[in-house]
C-alpha cells in the first residue's frame, strides 16, 4: 500500500518537473518580450541577451501614448479600432453561425447535404485568391478604408464556425426539440430557449477563437484599410518594423499591451473554452 503510494508520489513529481520545464520553454518568449519592453534599445540588441532590464525604463510605454514623441504612431486609435472590429466581428459571427448551424443541424431541407458540402468546400479556397475580386466589390460598394470592410462579412457566416456549431447542435439529443415542439414551441423558441443555453460552451469557444483571430488578423486590415486613423493594432504594430531597422523597445511595449485583451478573455472563458473544444458538454 505504502509502496504504491510512493510510486504515485514519484510519478507526480516527474509529471510536475516535465510540465514545469515545458511550461518554462513556452513562457520564455513571453517573459523576454515583457523584459524587452522595459529595456533601452542598446540593451535589447546586446549579445548575449540579459533578462533583467538595466536601466529599467518605462519610456517605451509612455512614448506610445505621447503624441509629441518623434516615434509616435496613433496607438490609442489602433486599440479603439481593433476593439470595434473584434467585438463587431464576434457579434456577427455568433449571430450568423448559430442561425445557420442550427438550420443545418435541425431543419429538414431537400438539398441540405449538398449545400453543406458547398459551404465546406469554401474552406478549401485559399483566401489570397479572393483578394482582388473582393477588393473590387468593396471598392464598388464603398467599403474600402472603412471598418465595415472587416465587420460586415462576419454577419454573413463563417464556414468553419458554422461547421463547428452544426456538429455541436447535432450532438444535442433531438428529443429535447421534440418535447418542446409538442408543447407548442416554434423553431425559433426551441433555438432560443432550449438549444442556446446548452450551446454556451461552443458559443464561448467561437467568441474566444474569433476574437483572437480578428484581433491578430494582419492581412485583411492591411489590404482593405489605408489611412492611419482606420488601422487596427496588428497592422499598426508592424509600423515599428522598418526597411532596415526596427524600434524594438516600442514594438515590445506595444505588443505587451496588445496581448492583454486576449489573455483576459481567455482566462475569463477558459472553463467553457476547454469544454467547447473537446465537445465534452454532450449529454446524450
Amino acid at each position: 500500500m505504502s509502496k504504491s503510494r510512493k510510486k504515485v508520489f514519484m510519478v507526480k513529481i516527474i509529471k510536475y518537473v516535465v510540465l514545469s520545464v515545458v511550461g518554462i520553454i513556452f513562457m520564455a518568449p513571453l517573459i523576454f518580450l515583457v523584459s524587452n519592453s522595459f529595456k533601452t534599445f542598446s540593451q535589447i540588441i546586446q549579445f548575449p541577451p540579459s533578462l533583467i532590464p538595466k536601466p529599467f525604463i518605462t519610456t517605451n510605454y509612455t512614448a506610445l501614448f505621447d503624441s509629441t514623441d518623434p516615434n509616435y504612431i496613433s496607438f490609442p486609435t489602433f486599440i479603439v479600432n481593433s476593439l470595434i472590429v473584434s467585438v463587431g466581428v464576434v457579434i456577427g459571427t455568433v449571430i450568423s453561425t448559430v442561425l445557420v448551424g442550427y438550420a443545418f443541424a435541425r431543419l429538414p431541407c431537400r438539398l441540405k447535404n449538398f449545400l453543406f458540402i458547398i459551404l465546406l468546400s469554401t474552406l478549401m479556397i485559399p483566401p489570397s485568391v479572393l483578394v482582388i475580386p473582393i477588393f473590387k466589390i468593396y471598392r464598388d460598394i464603398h467599403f474600402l478604408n472603412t471598418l465595415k470592410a472587416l465587420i460586415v462579412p462576419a454577419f454573413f457566416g463563417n464556414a468553419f464556425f458554422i461547421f463547428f456549431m452544426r456538429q455541436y447542435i447535432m450532438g444535442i439529443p433531438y428529443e429535447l426539440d421534440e418535447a418542446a415542439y409538442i408543447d407548442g414551441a416554434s423553431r425559433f423558441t426551441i433555438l432560443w430557449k432550449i438549444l442556446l443555453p446548452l450551446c454556451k460552451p461552443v458559443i464561448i469557444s467561437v467568441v474566444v477563437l474569433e476574437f483572437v483571430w480578428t484581433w491578430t488578423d494582419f492581412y485583411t486590415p492591411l489590404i482593405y484599410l489605408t489611412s492611419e486613423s482606420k488601422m487596427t493594432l496588428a497592422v499598426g504594430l508592424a509600423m515599428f518594423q522598418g526597411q532596415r531597422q526596427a524600434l524594438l523597445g516600442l514594438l515590445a511595449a506595444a505588443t505587451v499591451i496588445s496581448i492583454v485583451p486576449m489573455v483576459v478573455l481567455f482566462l475569463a472563458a477558459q472553463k467553457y473554452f476547454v469544454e467547447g473544444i473537446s465537445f465534452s458538454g454532450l449529454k446524450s
Partner: protein
Amino acid sequence: MKRRFTKISSVILAAALLASAFTGCGSQDSAKKSNDQVTTIRYARWGLPEEMNGTKKIIAAFEESHKNIKVTLESSSWDQYWEKIQTEIASNTAPDVMLMDGGWYLTQFAPKGILADIGPLMEKDKISKDDYFNVWQTFTYNNKIYSMPRDYNSIVLYYNKSLFKAAGITEVPNGNMTWDQIVKLAQKLTLDKNGKNATEPGFDPNNIEQYGLYVPYDNVDSTIETLIWQKGGRLMSVDKNTCQIDSPESKSVLQFLYDLNYKYHVSPTYSAALKYGEEQFPTGKFAMVYQGSWLQSSLADAKFDWDIAVAPSFDKKVYCTQSVGNAILTTSSNQEAAWEFVKYMSGKEGQTIMAQSKDSIPVLKDVAENFYVKLPGNPQNKQAIFDEAVSSVPNVDFKQKSTIYDAIKNIEPLYFNKKATLDETVNNILAKVKSIQNSAN
C-alpha cells in the same frame, strides 16, 4: 410551393435592400468630394513612425502654402508596402503619389506605364538635375525619369571613438584610407578575452570579445558589388545579362571578406555576425562597421562616442549611394496637384523640414551642404555622407535583380562558413543565376 417561393423572394428582397443601403451611403461620399473646391491627393509611403511624423510635418507645411490641395498620408511598413500598392493598382484604387525604391522596384512599375514621366514637368518648372546629388540613374528607365528623388543614403564607415581612445590609437579612419590600412587598424582593436589584440603573440582567435571591423558579408549591393567596383570589376555585365562573380576582381573581394575573419581575425564569422542582425555597431563591441547612413537612428541612445568617415577603398574610389523618390501614378486624376506636392517634398522647404526632423538625409545639394551638415549632434563628420556622392556604383533596377542578388546572398555562406571552396561557391552562384535568367525568359 407558393409559400416557399414567397420565402425565397423575401430573402432576395432583404438582400437587395441591404445592398442598396450600402451603395446609398457610398454615393453620398463621392458626391461630397466633387462639390468641394479643394483637391485631395493620396500619398502612400512606407517608413518608421519617425519618418511618418517627419512627412506629416512636410504635409502640414505644404497644405499651409497650397490652400487648394489636401494630402492624405497612407502609411505601411516596408514589408507590406509593395504588395498593397500592387493590389491597389490592380483594382484601380492606387494613390496619386507613391514612394518609390527605384533601385529595386522601378522595373516592376515603369514598363507597365503606370508611372508618370516627370522629365517634361521638371523642364517646365526649370528644375535642374544638377541641383541634386547624382542619383538620377536610379529613377531612369528607357531614358525617362519616373521619380523625383526624395532622400539620400550612403554606406559609410562608422567608428567607435571610445574604443579607439581606450586602445590609445590616435589615428582614426579618414576618407583616404585603403581597406588594407583599415584592416591594420582593426587588428589593434580586436581583443580576445585576455585583452590581447590581434597583432600580439598568444592572441586567442576563438575567444574574441571585441571586433575591430565588420563589413556585412550578406549585403550584396552595398558590400560585394561596391567592393568589386573598387577593384575595377563589375558584379553584373554592362547589359546586365551576365553575372561576373567569377572574375578575378570579384573573387579577390570574396577572398578579402573571408580573410577578415579567418586570416586577420578582425571580424566575426558569418553565422556569429548574423545574431546581431544589422545592429553590430550599436552594441559597442565593434570598433569599425561599414554600414548605411540609416544606422544613425539606432545610435540615438548609444553609450559611446562615435563618428563616421568616407568608406575605405581598394584601387578605385567608388562608393555605394542610394536614394528613394516619389513617383506620380498615371491613373491619378489630379496630376497637377500631385506634381506640386512631389516638387515641394524635393524642393528647398520640404528638404529643410525633412533634414530638421532628422528622419532622412536631404538629396537637394543646397539643403544638404548648407543646412544638414551644420546640424548639431553625432555624427560630427556629416559631410562624409555627401563626399561619397562624387563617385558611386549606379544603383539601377533590372529584370530579376532582387532574385539574383538574393541567390548570391544565399549561396555565398557556403564559402564564408567553410562548406565549399571559393571556386565551387562561385560556380554554384553562376549556375543559379543562369537558371533564374532562363526561367524568366
